[in-house]
């Protein structure tokens, strides 16, 4: 099954999938975390977001999903103004965006298959997706296809807390795919993985980006990954965007400047 068959991915290459304008966010005691942040991400792009600790990358991602409320500014995500959405509309928007976390955030005591099926929660809207044994066959089948895409169909019945770090992150990606997403956001997806597994996961992301035409925005501290697995780089420092351009035009030395 291709995600395109569902009609969820637009093939128009220039369509802007995410547009952030003059976004600001501050926290009590920490001051401004995001200052006048603006950026755009087009359909099918793979964009790496880089920057030092505390530069505002994760806050920016969470603001885009409205997991954190921004102070002001505009976010247009998949043609919807994120700030003006009511709760059901926001849930609907979130269901179209696969978010992959650094800590994977699987539900530990449940099976891999159940965790993947949770990706269909909004679409199915039924209690049957709480566990794999109550889910409809077509949902279970789709979850197995998503597990196949990440190379782990044999672990479907394993418990999520018995997986290695790499396997766990792949399951999190399968869960995101189960959402039939138009966009994937990954917040330091390989930070807790060893270099070999980290590279495998990044290759999986980029394969999904190329083959499934999934727009990808990920945060990385690994500059090699950022250069190798992205079309475009956005650099942040002190809550501001300080670099935005095509990846091949940058060297590792250029990127190191951001961390000074």
């Amino acid at each position: 099954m291709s995600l395109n068959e569902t009609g969820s991915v637009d093939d128009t290459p220039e369509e802007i999938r995410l547009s952030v304008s003059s976004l600001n966010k501050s926290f009590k005691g920490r001051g401004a975390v995001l200052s006048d942040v603006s950026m755009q991400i087009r359909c099918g792009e793979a964009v790496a977001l880089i920057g030092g600790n505390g530069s505002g990358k994760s806050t920016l991602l969470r603001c885009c999903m409205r997991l954190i409320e921004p102070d002001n500014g505009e976010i247009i995500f998949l043609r919807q103004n994120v700030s003006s959405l009511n709760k059901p509309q926001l849930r609907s928007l979130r269901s179209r965006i696969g978010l992959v976390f650094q800590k994977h955030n699987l539900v530990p005591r449940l099976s891999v298959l159940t965790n993947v099926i949770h990706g269909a929660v909004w679409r199915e809207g039924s209690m049957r997706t709480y566990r794999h044994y109550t889910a409809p066959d077509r949902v279970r089948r789709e979850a197995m296809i998503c597990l196949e895409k990440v190379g782990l169909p044999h672990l479907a019945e394993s418990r999520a807390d018995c997986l290695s770090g790499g396997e766990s992150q792949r399951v999190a990606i399968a869960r995101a795919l189960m959402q039939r997403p138009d966009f994937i956001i990954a917040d330091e997806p390989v930070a807790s993985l060893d270099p070999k597994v980290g590279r495998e996961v990044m290759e999986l992301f980029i394969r999904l980006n190329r083959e499934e035409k999934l727009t990808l925005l990920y945060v990385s501290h690994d500059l090699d990954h950022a250069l190798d697995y992205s079309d475009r780089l956005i650099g942040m420092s002190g809550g501001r965007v300080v670099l935005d351009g095509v990846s091949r035009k940058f060297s590792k030395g250029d990127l190191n400047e951001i961390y000074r």
Partner: protein
Amino acid sequence: MKYTDEHNALPKRFKMIAAWKFVMYVIIGVFFLYSFSGSGFSPSKLVSGCPNMGRILGEMFPPDIHRLSYISTAMFQTFQMAFVGAVIGIIISFFLSVLASRRNTPHISIYYASRFVIAFCRSVPDLVWAVIFVASVGLGPFAGTLTIIVDTVGFCGRFFAEAMEEVDKGPEEALQSMGARRLHIVMSAVVPAVLPSFVNTSLYALEKAVRSSVVLGLVGAGGIGIELKVAMDMFLYQEASTIIIGIFLLVVAVEQFSMYARREIM
């Protein structure tokens, strides 16, 4: 930082406590000593009472087993009261604890209302609940069962809610980011995470319910307690010892089952 002569002061082993804290500790200590008189604590009475205790224990043996079948029936009824009361109490506690956990409650007013109900159930002692229910529904095991339900809600409700508050937020955030509703998040992320704690608390509640159900009979709320009271009041110490041994075996059996279930489920 390099450790040099300029920075050679070792950290203090103990921090100076604030004066008001010191005064508080002294007040608590003095009040403890003062409370000895109020509590009637008397080592001499304890020593002089030892022969009586020995006499009663002596009169308890050998246990009288003439009414064993009747005592067994009452004991079984005690367990039934505890079991039904604990299970119903646990089910009510689960729903109440969802409303009483700040992260899952639909509204802050519902949170406070649920917390109040749980605190009220817990703060009134079970014997007082038993007296109220005996007055309301009459003597017998139903009053005892209702008491155990309320007592279990007070106990489990608090621990269930606290377990829900402490659960890792990661899976919740993941489900939230996928567009899940609050109910789905609770059932799919919160409940699996707190399940070991729930099982542990529930089994402990069952043990507690069995112990409570023995005492409830003293105020007429069914079970073996009333038999024990009658036996003691009528100086039938041999029969009382049979009842006490029965209670001991029942409590130990429930605790052993509880330990086994913990090992298997966790």
